[in-house]
């Protein structure tokens, strides 16, 4: 108990295993009163998992060390317990009730009562006190849905303050904020800091980390790999601690010589989403798009596929200016798009493998206005062998297949249309390691057979393993392009974490 005065929180040797993955392996963290601790690391490094173990969303493995909060060992079974104790986790997605007032949201579940009825007067005045403390201009009676995002986020923080939070965890809090709103958030963080609240700040944005944090803790593969005082270090120290993973040998890169250009994009912009996007993709080439979730990667691809309408810019397919207004046009232009959430957007879950794989080709399979079922069996058999789909039969409902095989069906579905360009958005999300490698091999084979392939991924080893060329994306901008030997972890991390405010203007 010697540290009670200094540390508000100490986590020692925390382990957390998910089926097949060791997400945390001896993770440690300590946090002083009135300190901002920045938590860095790639996607999947274990930052969020650790915070979820702390706040009761997950339970650490039984062989873990202890969590000391204000000097006492604690163990939470749900976020509610942690919150009541003063450990408040604020997720990226806000969890407010949109049609209720600011005051009610802050005191949700614990409204002040008088004579058995809700004491609105006290509720509103208590709320005003909290809002004043944060310098938030919203009124207690405002409806949440009428507030800008930044103020909604303040309300989330205010909720924590009202509960008497001693530890506040902010997970990527600035991802949807403007520069001005960010400064506003930082003012609040400093204010809370001066009142002794310990703050864990998870972010990928290095400039923010240097601006706001006192110390930095870097994670890699579920372990802390670096612990610094922010004042004593430079950017490279953090990057060095983040990288150093060995690339596993299971990646397959397309070895062919790239051919003629299939897709060229020039100056594509969509206000508030991405800006001035230019790139090209050639035959027999896998081009990677690396960036954080929310950087605008999927939106750019959706635009090429005709789902979104750009404000400016041109798209050329096979040297011709393309006029793709919707996904039907895109398919006609021989573009295939494997979306990131295959269960919602890629598959008809209750239907069989055969029906799913023949789905995109259905308009071409008609005979006298009816679908020629016989041909769908041929299609299934062809792609079953080509894609090495393991399914007990053609009639197996897709929902019962493994993630890897589901993904093969989605890819197979597009291949039936013989696309010139295939876009894969997070192709191996939720897929086990063995099947991942199969998918990677397939991607390389497709490119070698003459297709142009775009892969979006937020997993660095994957993007480095499969791509011949990589564009990095941050905050809706292409920040850099790497090929061959330039593709290193260090280059990629730097390219996506440095906010280039100048470029954004």
């Amino acid at each position, binding site marked *: 108990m010697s540290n009670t005065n200094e540390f508000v929180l100490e986590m020692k040797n925390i382990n957390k295993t998910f089926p097949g993955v060791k997400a945390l392996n001896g993770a440690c963290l300590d946090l002083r009163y009135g300190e901002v601790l920045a938590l860095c690391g790639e996607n999947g490094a274990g930052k969020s998992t650790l915070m979820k173990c702390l706040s009761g969303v997950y339970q650490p493995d039984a062989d873990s060390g202890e969590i000391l909060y204000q000097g006492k060992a604690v163990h939470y079974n749900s*976020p*509610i317990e942690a*919150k*009541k104790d003063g450990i408040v986790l604020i997720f990226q997605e806000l*969890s*407010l*009730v*949109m*049609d*209720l007032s600011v005051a*009610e949201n802050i005191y*949700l*579940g*614990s*409204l002040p*009562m008088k004579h*058995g*009825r*809700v004491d*609105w007067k006290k509720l509103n005045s208590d709320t005003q006190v909290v809002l004043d403390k944060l310098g938030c201009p919203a009124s207690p009676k405002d409806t949440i*849905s*009428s507030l*800008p*995002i930044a103020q909604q986020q303040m309300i989330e923080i205010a909720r924590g303050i009202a509960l008497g939070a001693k530890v506040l965890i902010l997970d990527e809090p600035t991802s949807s904020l403007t520069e001005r709103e960010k400064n506003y958030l930082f003012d609040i963080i400093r204010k809370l800091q001066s009142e002794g609240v310990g703050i864990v700040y998870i972010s990928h944005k290095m400039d923010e980390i240097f601006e706001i944090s006192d110390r930095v803790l870097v994670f890699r593969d579920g372990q802390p790999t670096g612990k610094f005082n922010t004042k004593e270090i430079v950017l490279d120290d953090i990057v060095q601690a983040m990288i150093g993973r060995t690339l596993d040998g299971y990646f397959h890169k397309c070895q062919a010589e790239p051919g003629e250009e299939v897709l060229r994009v020039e100056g594509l912009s969509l206000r508030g989403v991405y800006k001035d996007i230019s790139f090209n993709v050639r035959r027999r080439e896998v081009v990677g798009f690396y960036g954080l979730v929310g950087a605008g990667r999927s939106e750019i691809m959706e635009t090429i596929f005709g789902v979104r309408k750009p404000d400016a810019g041109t798209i050329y397919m096979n040297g011709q200016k393309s006029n793709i207004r919707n996904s039907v046009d895109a398919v006609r232009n021989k573009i295939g798009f494997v979306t990131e959430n295959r269960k919602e957007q890629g598959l008809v879950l209750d239907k069989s493998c055969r029906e799913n794989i023949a789905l995109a080709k259905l308009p071409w399979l008609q005979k006298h206005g009816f679908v020629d079922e016989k041909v769908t069996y041929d299609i299934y058999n062809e792609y079953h062998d080509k894609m090495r789909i393991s399914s007990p039969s053609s009639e197996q409902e897709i929902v019962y297949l493994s993630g890897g095989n589901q993904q093969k069906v989605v890819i197979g579905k597009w291949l039936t249309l013989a696309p010139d360009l295939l876009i894969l958005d997070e192709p191996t999300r939720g897929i086990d390691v063995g099947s991942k490698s199969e998918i990677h091999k397939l991607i390389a084979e497709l490119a070698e057979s003459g297709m142009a392939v775009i892969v979006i991924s937020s997993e660095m080893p994957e993007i480095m393993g499969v791509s011949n060329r990589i564009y990095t994306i941050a905050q809706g901008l292409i920040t850099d392009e790497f090929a061959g030997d330039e593709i290193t972890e260090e280059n990629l991390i730097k390219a996506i974490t440095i906010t280039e405010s100048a470029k954004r203007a």
Partner: protein
Amino acid sequence: MTMKKLKAFLGKNTVVPILVIILLLAAVFVPGFLTPRNLLNVLNQNAVKGIMAIGMTFVIINGYFDMSICTLISLTAALSCGLQSSIGLVPAILVSIAVGLAVGAINGFLVAKAGINAFVVTLALMLGCRALSYMYSGEQSILATNDLFTDFGMGSIGGLSYISILFIVMVLIAFYVLRFTPHGRNTYAVGGNAGSAFNAGINCVKTTFINFVICGFTGALGGVLFAAQSGAASPPLGWPDMHMLVIAGVVLGGTKLTGGFGNIWYTCGGIIILGVVSNMMNLLNVQTYVSTLVTGVIMIGVLYLDKVLTERKKKAALANL
């Protein structure tokens, strides 16, 4: 109230301008509409529907809806009429109400606890109540024998029926519950965002369960009052669209079917709009089915207008960012 505030109020509570427009139209174009007697008539004719809409408001703010009241009213009407000669008036009414509470509890359990879709659950209970009602009544109308019962149903003070007074009292109670009790506020939270309500430690299952029971209660009471009003219970009472008219009244007022937004005044406004429209048609001697058609058209018109207004508000809010 300043002009700006008034504008904001009308923009948020679209039922008010819509109601005003309809009242003005009726006052100008329908002879005999704007008499105290006719206006009281509108209220008296719609009070029972209004009472049923109170319970429905709770369920809809909670994010669900209840179709079972459609035939529940026929069952409780039959029970209250049929039992009053054998076990007495008050026990007969109590049994009827208990049946409503039980139906609400079954709805609530299946929707909130078992997680079955509210459409399917309340549809099943609707069919069940219909069957029970026909079995009990033997497909015959049952006359109410107790004079006290029919006296209450048909009586009035100064033109205002007893049932209307009951309706007004219940609206005030509902207002209090929704506004000032934890259960009322929890209902909004659960309907608006069940996930964050749960994270804030609110018992979502209990909240939803109670609201279905409330709806069962007001539904059962509605049946009893219909019987008192007409002095008899006929098996097809409520069939096939009473629940729809009640839900329409609630939604017409501005309460969101998706949950989390609305209040009891909206419901009053919605029920009055429906009542005024039907009253207008009556006074103009329009055929019943034409009147139904017009009601449908007005419903779409009002909800479309509401959608347009809210979209515009949303766009204006975005432009301000």
